């Protein structure tokens, strides 16, 4: 995170990611409803569609961005000692990064199969 990603930028990205997630949720549920039968192959077919998997991947990026801004806000509000704050921020950042890499790996492997 650069020095600029704070204040206005954080706030703005929180709104943008929320908007994306909201719209994506509608798209996702519509996709599920249009699937007809809920079978593994129908699910796989949906995920494997290039547009769906791209939207889904951006959805996860937005989800982690949104979580990061939210977590950072809560940590900044409630944890005041600088050393503990830095540690908790770092751990949450790394945790989110870990999840992001993991989910990318799952999506990538699903597509490559």
């Amino acid at each position, binding site marked *: 995170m650069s020095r600029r990603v704070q204040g*206005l930028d954080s706030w703005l990205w929180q709104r943008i990611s929320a908007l994306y997630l909201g719209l994506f949720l509608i798209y996702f549920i519509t996709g599920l409803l249009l699937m007809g039968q809920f079978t593994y192959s129908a699910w796989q077919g949906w995920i494997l569609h290039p547009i769906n998997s791209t939207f889904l991947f951006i959805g996860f990026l937005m989800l982690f961005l949104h979580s990061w801004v939210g977590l950072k*806000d809560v940590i900044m*509000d409630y944890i005041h000692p600088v050393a503990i704050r830095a540690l908790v921020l770092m751990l949450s950042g790394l945790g989110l990064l870990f999840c992001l890499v993991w989910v990318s790996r799952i999506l990538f492997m699903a597509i490559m199969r």
Partner: protein
Amino acid sequence: MRFLIYRYDPDKDAKPYMQELELETIREDMMLLDALHELKALDESLSFRRSCQEGVCGSDAMNINGRNGLACITPLDVLKEPVTLRPVPGLPVIRDLIVDMTQFYQQYRNVKPYLIVHDPEPEIERKQTPEERDRLDGLYECILCGCCSTSCPSFWWNPDKFLGPAALLQAWRFLADSRDQAEEERLEALEGPYRLFRCHTIMNCVDVCPKGLDPTNAIGKIKQLMIKRSI
């Protein structure tokens, strides 16, 4: 009518306690401040601030049954018994219902609550169109009672870094003023994660403002202006 009042005199008391007091006769048109005056007649050590007694000076802000408000314009008959009175939360208590407002005023000072004009002083007054003047409605009426900032959780957690709703309302009051010429500096001073952006739109400020003002809306307007400036 029964009252439960926060008492603390740092010279005498080891820690704060709640004192029970009772008023026998209550007149129908009594405001809470009138009751406080009568309670002070019962116990003259009870301390609170008040001045104009009609909601203009903003000095008798206190926490009334868990909600910040001005004692002088709070009718007694809408209050549940026992009426619990505490100092406004989040600021150091000087004595009883009197708090030290230094931090609050400091944040007010930080937004430079006055017109900044770089042009040479004009010969006549600085004129505004009626529309330009209208933009200041809902902003200039603030009496700095502190009800909003002291009911804001973000201000409780970071009173030294977050400006608080009262100061931010005034920040917008001068940003919105057609005569002010310091928009860039003002916006610059509000950037960063704390000064403005600790606001999480909790809206306690709007809920308690005795003048019916809307700091959350003002904060939103500042953000809009920032976005307009940065895109």
